[in-house]
């Protein structure tokens, strides 16, 4: 995965930052590289330092330690207006006194481009996001989605190498979000601009990105391709955060020269370990299978009671209790009618690719 030296547009080297008045570091020696044309996402819970990373890259915050390097060289001490990157603000930050067209022209005007040229370029950029007919409007007369697209056009109009987006879809409703996700991905491919995209929606991060950086309390928890994070989480935290996983306690015991795990007193022969003792296993919701209680095929099953069923459109989430374990499972919505709260069920777990974390 590591990019060859020289092909990156952005590189952070051991960046650390503590906000004045805080004792805890907001960023703790963070290093990563973003390749040219890459869709790079930063994922993490609230307060994990995602915004701080973006603001450091953009130049609104100075790191206490470390360097920010862009293709042209070290930019750590360069002011924001001299960096070859653009930010899409969560609040859009469209200038209220300028029309959409004038907003998009703004960066071109700042660099001294002539009026004709910049009008043409602005129109092109607005066309990319299907906003050209609204160029003459003032921002407050637009809907949220339209403002979002205008902000996007303004950010890409001067073709920067790098675009920073801080939860750009946060203020939009679900449908608009999905539409905008498509717009963003196709825009990114079309322009070949590297995106650094901050979100706390793991679905969004996994579906759109080339690589994902997971942050936890100012540190990098894991960096990798979406499928790596999903199938090979390196820590419980990542498994839980990225994969919609149940974290279940396992006990490994010696068995024929190796070790076999049991959950809730039931042994699962396909779960093999290399040492004995207590551990935790991450089981994604879609690896939980639910059968009627009477059906007993002889393979390892846990028996439980359905506590709650959540209808999510294409699938349902079932919340079950087995003794003192809580297990969540995800099923196709077609089975919604066959499962009701209070029902006794038999639960199968698909543990073939489950990640085990020893305590």
């Amino acid at each position, binding site marked *: 995965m590591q990019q060859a030296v020289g092909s990156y547009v952005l590189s952070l080297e051991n960046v650390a930052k503590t906000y004045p008045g805080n004792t805890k570091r907001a960023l703790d020696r963070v290093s990563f590289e973003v390749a040219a044309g890459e869709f790079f996402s930063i994922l993490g819970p609230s307060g994990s330092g995602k915004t701080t990373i973006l603001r450091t890259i953009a130049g609104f*915050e*100075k790191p206490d330690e470390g360097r920010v390097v862009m293709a042209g060289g070290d930019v750590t001490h360069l002011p924001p207006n001299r960096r070859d*990157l653009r*930010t899409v603000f969560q*609040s859009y930050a469209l*200038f209220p006194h*300028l029309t959409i067209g004038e907003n998009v022209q703004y960066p071109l005007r700042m660099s001294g481009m002539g009026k004709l040229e910049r009008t043409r370029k602005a129109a092109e950029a607005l066309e990319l996001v299907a906003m050209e007919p609204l160029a003459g409007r003032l921002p*407050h007369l637009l809907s949220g989605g339209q403002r979002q697209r205008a902000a996007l056009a303004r950010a890409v109009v001067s073709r920067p190498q790098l675009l920073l987006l801080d939860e750009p879809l946060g*203020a939009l409703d679900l449908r608009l979000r999905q539409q905008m996700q498509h717009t963003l991905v196709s825009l990114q491919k079309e322009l070949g601009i590297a995106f650094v995209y901050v979100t706390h929606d793991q679905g969004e991060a996994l579906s759109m990105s080339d690589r994902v950086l997971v942050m936890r309390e100012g540190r990098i928890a894991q960096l990798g391709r979406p499928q790596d994070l999903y199938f090979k989480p390196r820590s419980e935290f990542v498994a839980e955060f990225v994969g919609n996983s149940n974290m279940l306690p396992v006990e490994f015991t010696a068995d024929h020269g190796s070790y076999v795990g049991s959950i809730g007193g039931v042994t699962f022969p396909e779960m093999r370990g290399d040492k004995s003792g207590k551990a935790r296993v991450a089981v994604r919701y879609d690896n939980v299978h639910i059968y009627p209680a009477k059906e007993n095929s002889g393979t390892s099953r846990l028996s439980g009671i359905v506590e709650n069923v959540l209808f999510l459109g294409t699938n349902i989430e079932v919340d079950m209790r087995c003794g003192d374990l809580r297990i969540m499972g995800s099923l196709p919505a077609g089975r919604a009618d066959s499962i009701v709260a209070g029902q006794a069920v038999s639960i199968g777990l698909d543990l073939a690719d489950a990640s085990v974390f020893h305590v």
Partner: protein
Amino acid sequence: MALFATPAVPARFRFRIDLPQVPVYAWLALVVLIPNLLLIGTSFLSVAEGRIKFEPTLGNYVRLWHSAGFWRLLWKTLQFSLLGAFLGALAAYPMACFVGRAVRNNRSILTVLVLVPLWISLLMRVFSWRLILGQNGVLNSSLVSSGILDTPSSAFLYTGSSVVLTFAYISIPFIFVSTLNAFEKIPQSLIEASQDLGATTVQTFCHVIWPLTRRSLAIGFSLAFLVTVGDYVTPSMVGGINGTTLGVLISSQFGIASNWPFGAALSIALIVAVSVVVGVALWSCPQRGVFSGDETPSGGPPPGARPRLGFIGGSILYGVVVAFLYAPLLLMVVFSFNDSTLQAFPLQRLTFKWYAELAGNSGLIAAAQRSLVVAVCVVLVSSIVGTSFALILHYRNLLYSRAIELLLTLPLAMPSVVLGIVMVLGTEIVGVPPGLARIVIGQASFIMPITMLLVLTRLRRLDPSLLEASLDLGASRLQSFVHVVLPLIRGAAIGGMLLGVTLSADEVMVTLFLAGPSQTLPIWVFNQMRFGFTPSVNAVFTLLGLFALSTVLIGQFISRRRAID
């Protein structure tokens, strides 16, 4: 009868008057419309053998049109106020930028410090400049004692520049308060977006900050201009012959010269000229776009921004301007304890004799008592009327309620000298004699709108669903009003009352026309100064200043305790 109707009423075009609206229309007619129409009417009359002739004529206007002296005076009047407001803006705009955008801690203290002079008697502020600029003033005595001048110069006082200087001094707080809010309102994300899009600091100022603040600057500028252009006291106190303005001429038509029709025509000419200036100022600084409200509303720099050159420059500017605002006032306080009839350094012994002298002065005590009575009456009338008018305008669907609101606040926007004579005409016609009643009516004409505006602003910011929630929770309309609306507007109403007290206690310009022989305290002081100066005037002003300050502090304290939103 319901106290308030639900706002949306479709049948707007039916002309219908219901009971609560009657007082609004009555006030509008009696205090605003009729007196102003009288002014216009009077300007078309003439005077023969000392009596007004009731025959319409254009004579006054023709006389003005052909009088070179009038044009020169008009130009000079506008020039003084424009220059004063311009100099004021030069100091106040960057200062507001500094306080609104660069300062993070103690912003409210820095703000109040600039605004306090607004509450201190105008007369006192003007008078203190006389202490500095006068023949025996501080400036002269220090120049003489340091050997720069041989004899005291009369070049400082009684010139056009002393008027401009004093006007600039008066203008600073007005312009500061108007622009500060605009600077604070700009979301930090807009500034960052501009930098992010490649703009330098200068470009960000020209293309983002200036367009978003120039409207407020124009408003502050106009406000300062309006206040100073109608001021005939300052020019007569510090301007002498060279500083005469149209306002001085107008006031003399209602005094010594006693030519009301000519004075009325002059007033109309002044209003026209002022409207043109204010119109141009507002037109040249248009407002475009509105904040959509989804920007992060963070005034001030991001935390972590370290003091830089701009910050240091801003601090110095702020310090210098505040020193400029307070030095004259402090000087006056110091001299009120100085055992000398000369207002000059070095100071003599500490004394309280000027204060003691006040206690034995029956004229002063009578005037102070009168002032108290006037203030109580004015505040009672203004707060009761202002609050109920605000409620009526907000909750009843008055036809053209926006226009009515504007007309009710018209007296606030009139140059004081014009408001003074308008109120003379209005009270004269219904037979109110000069004296307390006239003063109360005249002062209420502009203090009532202030209370009304304060309460209206509060009402408009209230969440409309609060009232609905109250009704929904089973309260009647009357109960909702008593338990929800009233407590929420109480702070604004009390603020209006306190402001009214200080305004009434300090008012000179309008009151002077209405008082006749019954002088209020500031009028009494003004007359004392005209007929010769005693240091006890310093003492009176010090006491008045203390009174105003404590009122402000009480107001601050109350509003702090009620700072819910």
